[in-house]
């Protein structure tokens, strides 16, 4: 059996049981949401179509996963490869971990597993991560996974009351293969 699995986590499709947990711990945290999303936080009722974490049909342009920590077989967060562009063969990574699962190295492992999916399974050429310039845990995860910092888009994000820069990281397939 070959699934999407790293040293600490595995990625699987979203299950219905994941949705209320992710809605509560990720979406309902206004400060966290402000740092993750490009859209302002809005109240979302349980079980509605507006939930960013609802179960969806797979699409060619994006692949949404639930992250499961291997040690405890528990839902640890969400991860996605989004804006999959088969012409330019590129995609973006987005990750959000539940509060109790941060600081354990899960993000680096999740990024590596998503890179395996993107480069090996899908045949992509480039994968990109954007994060706020002061999101040090995400930046560390990207760098540990082999990404190169390519620049900072100044004042590109609005984070509860002020503009923040957005750091852009990228990795190319040959860098991934030789890592």
């Amino acid at each position: 059996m070959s699934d999407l699995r790293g040293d600490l986590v595995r990625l699987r499709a979203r299950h219905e049981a994941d949705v209320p947990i992710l809605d509560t711990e990720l979406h309902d945290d206004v400060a966290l949401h402000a740092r993750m999303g490009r859209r302002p936080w809005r109240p979302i009722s349980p079980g509605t179509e507006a939930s960013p974490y609802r179960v969806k049909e797979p699409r060619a342009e994006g692949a949404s996963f639930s992250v499961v920590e291997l040690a405890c077989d528990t839902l640890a967060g969400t991860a996605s490869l989004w804006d999959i562009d088969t012409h330019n063969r590129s995609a973006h990574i987005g990750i959000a971990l539940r509060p109790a699962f941060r600081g354990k190295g899960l993000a680096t492992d999740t990024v590596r597993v998503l890179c395996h999916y993107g480069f090996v399974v899908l045949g992509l050429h480039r994968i990109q991560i954007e994060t706020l310039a002061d999101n040090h845990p995400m930046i560390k995860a990207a760098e540990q996974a082999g990404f190169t910092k390519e620049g900072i888009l100044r004042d590109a994000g609005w984070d509860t009351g002020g503009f923040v820069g957005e750091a852009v990281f990228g990795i190319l397939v040959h860098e991934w293969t030789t890592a």
Partner: protein
Amino acid sequence: MLRGELVGLRARHEADAPILEAELHDDLVTTSRSDWRPWRPVSPGAQASRYRVAEPSDNAASFSVVDLADDTLVGDAGLGNIDAHGRSAYLGLVLRPACRGKGFGTDIVRVLCGYAFTVLGLHSVHLGTLDDNHAMIKAAERAGFTKEAQLRKAAWVMGGFSDAVLFGMLADEWTAT
């Protein structure tokens, strides 16, 4: 149900879908080697599952394969691209991991040929697989198929391009077996 020596082919039941999704779809190597499309995460019950219960159609026939000895689910098999004008179809099968290497593949190919040539009245059946899928190639050859083409580097499989091979059998060859 269509019966061979070892296996029976019946319609998909709801209870089959989660087993096939877990053991076949969720295995990235199996899916990447058996599907032209890239593997994607498919949530339980999604319409996109290739193993869900579907209405019968004129251009495809999907079966669940069961072991006649104990009626357990062995895998997924069927005909696709059924072309009523050219009277041809493509044959495909995927076995659950524990059911490989037991001769089920050859038996399934024979049962599907019987369905295609006798029940549907087709003139030719084709079968495509990767050129290093020795189990499938052996099953095709044992059932009497002839290799017709080698499509160079036609499939992206887990990090590289692989050759595909096409086999074919004609109605009169089937009758002669």
